[in-house]
């Protein structure tokens, strides 16, 4: 029989390297939040929606965003039926977000409610809540372990809204790349604590930023999915703040 003291010593020595480098969930979330992001970004996106019967709908969108995506304007380029429709979103900290839609056939701009954060954005599997940034201090974090995803070592980070914070999800489980501190996979659980959506992200380095090149969202309960593919990405181009105004919806920039 081995000596118990010797066993404990060996165990402790094995644990030391881990303890020396271990981070708390909060620290990982904070590090992610502090990751360098572009001041503004221009891109074209192809959005493919697939319904439960496997039928697809494809749209092409031009997007300009700034201020960590808190201000965004998008124009539909295709399909032909949607060409010219444009959408403006401005998030506010202390008041309801502003959302406006330009409807060229009616020659009208219409404001849209932002009360229902769980609503789908443009019929996709992304809700408005999915598209807004998660405020660091509104969640509690727990490091659930580590796992390799497609050869990328990841932290498994669980985020739960703090009491009093109203969200449509009960919790998130995020697989965070250790090297780049970006989310590789993000799983959202509904209020019954059942997996609702699974988001898989791919990135590309540009000017030291990790820019998304593809976002695949699957609603596992509805059996639908949305694939967003990014192209022609430009960052820090010096977008004028006054671009994010209603009048600019009416003209698609070249």
């Amino acid at each position, binding site marked *: 029989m081995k000596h118990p003291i010797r066993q404990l010593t060996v165990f402790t020595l094995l644990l030391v390297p881990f303890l020396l480098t271990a981070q708390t969930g909060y620290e990982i979330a904070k590090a992610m939040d502090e990751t360098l992001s572009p001041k503004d970004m221009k891109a074209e996106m192809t959005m493919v929606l697939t319904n439960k019967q496997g039928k697809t709908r494809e749209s092409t969108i031009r997007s300009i965003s700034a201020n960590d995506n808190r201000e965004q304007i998008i124009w539909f380029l295709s399909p032909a039926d949607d060409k010219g429709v444009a959408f403006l979103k401005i998030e506010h900290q202390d008041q309801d977000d502003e959302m406006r839609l330009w409807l060229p056939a009616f020659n009208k701009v219409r404001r849209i409610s932002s009360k229902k954060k769980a609503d789908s954005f443009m*019929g996709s599997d992304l809700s408005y809540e999915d598209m807004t940034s998660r405020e660091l201090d509104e969640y509690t974090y727990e490091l659930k372990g580590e796992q390799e995803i497609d050869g990328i070592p990841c932290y498994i980070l669980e985020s739960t809204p703090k009491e009093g914070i109203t969200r449509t999800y009960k919790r998130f489980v995020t697989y965070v790349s250790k090297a780049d501190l970006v989310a590789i996979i993000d799983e959202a659980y509904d209020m019954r604590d059942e997996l609702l959506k699974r988001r898989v992200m791919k990135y590309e380095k540009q000017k030291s930023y990790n820019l998304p090149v593809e976002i695949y969202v699957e609603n596992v309960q509805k059996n639908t999915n949305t694939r967003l593919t990014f192209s022609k990405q430009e960052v820090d181009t010096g977008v004028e703040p006054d671009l994010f105004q209603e009048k600019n919806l009416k003209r698609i920039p070249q």
Partner: protein
Amino acid sequence: MKQWFIDQSVVHPKRSIILSILLTILMGTGIKYFVVEDDFMKLLPQDVQSMITWNNLRDEFGSTDLMFVAFGHSGGDALNPESLATLWDVTQAMAEVEDVDEVISLANMDRMDGDEGFLEVSSLQPAREVSDSEISSIRDYLDDNSKIRARSLSRNGDYFNIMIRPVVNGRNDVIVQGLQKVAAENLISYDVHWGGQSYLTGSLPLMIRTDVMALMRVGLIGMLLILLLSFRNIPAVGIVLVTILLSLVFMVGFHGWMYHLTGSDAFLFSILNTSMPIILLTIANSYGVHIITKFFRKMRLTQDVKGSVAASLDSLILPVFLAALTTIAAFLSMIFAPLESLLGYGISISVGIVWAWLLTTIFLPSLLVVKKWKPDSVAVSKASGFESFVVAFGDQVIKRPKMILGAAIVVVLIGAYGIFQLNIEVNMKHFFKPENPIRQSLEFMDDEMTGTMDLQLLINADLKSPEVLNKIESIQTFMESHPSVTLSISIADVIKLMHRMINDNDPAFETIPDTREKVNNLFTLYSMSGDPDDFSSLVDYDYRKGLATSMMRAISTREIVQLVDEIEVFLSQNDYEDLDITITGMLVVFRDLVSLILKSSFISIFASIIVIALIAAYFFKHWIWGAMAIIPLSSAVILNFGLMGIFGIDLNHVTALLSAIIIGVGVDFAIHYISQFRVHLRREGLTPSISHATMQDVGYPVMLDAASNMAFGSLLFSEFIPMIHMGGLMIFAMISTSVGTLTLLAVSLELSKHYLAKVEAVKIIED
């Protein structure tokens, strides 16, 4: 061969009893695989064109066959805080019920508001607890949107309407049980009404089976009492009872084994199989009654048990075998039926009949041999009053053959005339007595809500085209002009509402926009604020297929045919060629199903009669016997449908199907009579008293058999009108086939006895 059967009971009675019981137990172990199927949808044929279309539609749009639950207080105002909170809870709880795809009620409907350049899609009932101002906002919105109001509230605003969409191929019986549990927990203080075709199909099978099984027990007791009064001997009744129960165990076990071994849905025990136990009980009873009656008659003469058993079997093995064979032929004709369950019905009951025949010819005589009979007991020594009456009745018939034949022909002709008056019509509502709670609920739903039936128009066209949408709107206007249609809903309604909202809720804009771009912009606008699934029951993903659903009051199959014809005429007259429109829905499937069952039931009836004639002709060795064998049965069929026509009883798929089934029970009598007539002809030659002798032999068991089986007329006390029809049909079939045999067949044989004697003489020489 005949001697082998006789030896089994006379020489080896104990061995035969033990073997019969062991084999029954062995087959009976299949009961553990016996599966009761209460999901009516599983029974429908999947290869009928209307079913294929409907299934495709359900794959695309989800189930269109809704269940409805209404609750409230008559004369009250449903829009109050307490009732809205209950509606909220019930809506959520019902959404959790297994196999429920979606629950639609005021509590989870969205509202669309537009004002001062703003469009918002939000919840109509914002929370469980609502304030007075929120209630008044809901009320105002419903007053402005009549179609939404009609779907969610009763005409007087005193009841809520909840619509439940089952998942495609979901089990309606499971849903109904789940919903009823929710209602029992939450709606105890409210009046609750249920409706919808899927509710009926989900709730009826269990209710009918429970009802029939209870009445079947009453019928069985009645049957045994009639036998007891007639036999005046408890062990004799016990012997019949044991024989029929063993037959039943064997058949049920076989049904279970077949399901286990084949996995075929044909061997599920569904609502269509409900009559199986009753039918087998009556058939097994018939065989037993004939053997025991004959045994007592022989005992009265010889007082020798073994000799009497042997003599009874000697004269009855062939007729009982032929009765079994013809009955099996009648049941196997069910293979023409379009419903898979009826194939399983036909096979299992045929096996049950074979076993009943074997038990009656081996097991039952063995029991007679083993039992110690007192020669001086009343059962053995004296004929019963009933027996004396039947013999006297037979004598009167035989004395007046021409008059009886003439009267019988007149009756059959009247029946034939009645067939032309027959009204073929099915209205599910009329399957219940007026005082039945289900019927009252259905009538409430028809009077106060939007009805419980629906019809779909599947439209293949460019559903973003204003021209197409305007045409859909005009079709809906046409549909709503029909008195049975309460409401029509399509994507055109949603577009009109969005158009109004985007124009600051101006009612003048509740129209289809004038350009395709505008229609498209409205869809895009909605997708920014509403759930894209909101339209999934109205239009497909590509906006190439749409549904215009008409909510309707309960109508009959005849009215469905008329309505569909009217729609087709309207569409052909009004330039709708560019819209590829298919009329579909459960109603259309039901219309086709009823027509199929009626057709197949008639084919089955005619096929049975022909096969019975062929079997009788083959075994009695001349076509004339085949023709004679079907006289009582054919007359009974003519009278059955004819009297229905004369007395205004609608012919529906259930009555037709039951008629086809009950024919199998009524076929025996003629076989027994002809068989005995031939025995006398061959044994004694043509004597003036041949008909009298035959009547003495056969009249009493035929009438006793018929009378005891009539105890299953207990079904007349059922809650369900089709079951009442079954009880009535059972009584009618027993009277018409037994009386037909002892009158029409008896006098036909009497009048043609010289020709028949020549036929038999030739056959005797040939043999």
